């Protein structure tokens, strides 16, 4: 097939690629670069500058040195928010990763019904976080929700009113929303594993479970790192869902860093301290992403097929 098309002549392709790299390619990146600078770099610098002020969002912006940093770093609310953020991160990773791997592996099969199922499983990701939060809130209402409606006492708990329950619920709903996405990543990862490995294992008499643990899981190593990076860094930005579901309550039990930032900035008019939190969030996210990259080794971003 390929040999009949002149364009796919290896030599011709090679020269064009070299020329593109030198001339046109960098310019193709320009629009993206403009947006990146405009919407990421400049605001980031702005936020950093704002963190050295005590602006109330309305009046004049007056530099105040380290006042805001001092206020935030000595605030007992900060360690708490960091701790809650960390807990949400770890708990939602621990819930999502095994479930998405299993689901992704299952969906990687080519049987027809699985295609239908993977569409069904994908639905939660299509809903907006706000809609999900409102729906769960209605379902879990202790007086008018599912539990009360069906007369099931176990279900009609004060779900959002007790710190431990509310925290567990946030992790559950976050996982419910994002497992489909990570299952999709794993589905792709599993499909990339050469079939020959499984055929060889089968000849050696390995069962399905054995195949999963000795072939699928090790081969998914880089997919796990990619997916975990997305989960961990993404968990730092959990905001909308928690905001609608619990508003950080009850009594700060689910007050994650991003919510803390919003509440300080836009509800309490403390733009300086809110910017400090924003800077801290950026730093934490950066460190985490770098750590995970380290964990994956230098070749994490290379093709998984190499060396097979």
């Amino acid at each position: 097939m390929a040999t009949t098309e002149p364009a796919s002549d290896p030599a011709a392709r090679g020269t064009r690629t070299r020329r593109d790299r030198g001339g046109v390619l960098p310019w193709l990146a320009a629009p993206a670069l403009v947006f990146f600078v405009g919407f990421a770099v400049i605001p980031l610098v702005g936020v950093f500058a704002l963190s050295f002020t005590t602006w109330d969002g309305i009046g004049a912006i007056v530099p105040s040195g380290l006042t805001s940093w001092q206020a935030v770093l000595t605030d007992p609310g900060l360690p708490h928010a960091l701790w809650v953020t960390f807990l949400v991160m770890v708990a939602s990773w621990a819930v999502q990763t095994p479930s998405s791997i299993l689901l992704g592996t299952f969906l990687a099969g080519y049987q027809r019904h699985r295609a239908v199922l993977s569409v069904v499983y994908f639905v939660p990701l299509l809903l907006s976080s706000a809609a999900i939060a409102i729906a769960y809130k209605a379902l879990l209402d202790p007086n008018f929700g599912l539990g009360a409606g069906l007369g099931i006492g176990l279900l009609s708990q004060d779900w959002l009113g007790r710190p431990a329950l509310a925290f567990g619920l946030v992790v559950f709903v976050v996982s419910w929303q994002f497992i489909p996405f990570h299952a999709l990543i794993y589905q792709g990862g599993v499909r990339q594993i050469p079939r020959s490995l499984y055929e060889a294992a089968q000849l050696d008499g390995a069962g399905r479970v054995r195949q999963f643990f000795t072939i699928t899981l090790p081969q998914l190593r880089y997919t796990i790192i990619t997916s975990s990076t997305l989960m961990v860094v993404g968990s730092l930005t959990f905001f909308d869902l928690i905001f609608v579901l619990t508003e950080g309550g009850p009594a700060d039990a689910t007050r994650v860093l991003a919510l803390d930032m919003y509440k300080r900035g836009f509800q309490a008019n403390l733009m300086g301290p809110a910017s400090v939190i924003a800077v801290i969030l950026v730093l934490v996210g950066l460190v985490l992403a770098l750590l995970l990259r380290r964990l994956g080794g230098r070749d994490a971003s290379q093709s998984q097929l190499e060396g097979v």
Partner: protein
Amino acid sequence: MANQLSRRTVLGLAAGVPLSLALGSCGTSGPGASSGATYWFLNGQPQEGIRTGAVDRFNKADPSEKISPTTFQNDAYKTKIKTAIGAGQAPTIIWGWGGGTLRTYVKAGQVEDLTSWFDQNAKVKGRLFPTAFSAATVDGKIYALPCETVQPIIMYYNKRVFDSVGARPPQTWGEVMDLVPKLNAKGIAPFSLGGQSRWTNMMWLEFLFDRIGGPEVFQAVFDGQKDAWSNPAAIEALTKVQDLVRADGFIKGFSSITADSNADQALLYTGKAAMMLHGSWSYGIQQSQGGDFVSSGSLGFMNFPAVDGGKGDPSDTVGNPAQYLSISSKATDEQKKIAKDFFAKGVLDDEEIKQWIGTGGVPVVKGTQDLLAKDRNAEFLKFTYDIASNAKVFAQSWDQALSPTAAETLLDNISKLFQLSITPQQFATNLNAVIGQ
């Protein structure tokens, strides 16, 4: 009124609001950008229609002066107006709630001082409830025109429930505490409460502080006196609230109920709860959502009970004395003139007054008793009017009276107080730390 509720409504969309609004406001609706004045206010019927109607009539009466209105969703508006004012893109006429937020605008020099204008237009000032002006006044100067309706907080009760239990609504705090076990024994929650919204819990403190210690207790906080929250009357009020929580005075799961879903209202009209402390706008919600609850005369209402031995006057009330209109100091002279003419001729004209009454609201205008008496909701309207005009003290809701910074700390600690996760003393300590901010 639903609108009043939805201003506290929480939408996840708010997350995207700051950026999109900041972008959206680039190059539009800036001061002096076009002739004519701009006016931003909240959407949502029936209030939006009444506001728009007043603008339309004003525009029609004199085509040389034009106001172009823009409407916003409640919570989006709160962020948008702050962002716009901070960016120097404020509308000519700023709709708001007065109090602490207005004070921050004044401190930043963003709103026009209207004191001398009110002196020249004594008639405009004279027809409004005098109590409504305190939330429009900063350091002795008036910065806003009270408008729309007066919204005191009222104790509602379900007459059917009280009939079935064979009890009568409590007149004192002692009777409240006696009723709690009686109602719980029958499987009825004594009080409905949308506790997740926090300001709902705050209404209880506002009344208990006033009934126990009189208006001076919170006034001291407002005036920035050191350790004002540690007043013995304040501690007693905070303790009484926790006693009520411990006695199961509030509906099970109250801290996961939000007021914006109106679930707290539903608890009252479905008879799951016997009583509810809520704003006067709740009447309209009960009427539109409660089936025949209001029309059959099952909704009872009264002022907050007295506390035995308390210093406060049981006729005092709290709530929103009015809504408020300010003029941006960044507007052009022409725009300011149009806005002032609108204040004098357009705001609360006869038609607007009639329409507010139709929604079950009492306009902040004096002498509407005859109109109120003719309405189908005459009993409730008269009750609200009497509370508003007879109250010796009509205190503004704390979260509106305080600066946004102090209000946020207050609301956070109130939710912890109702969760029983802090003691009254810790509450006082936490709040003493932000007095005067």
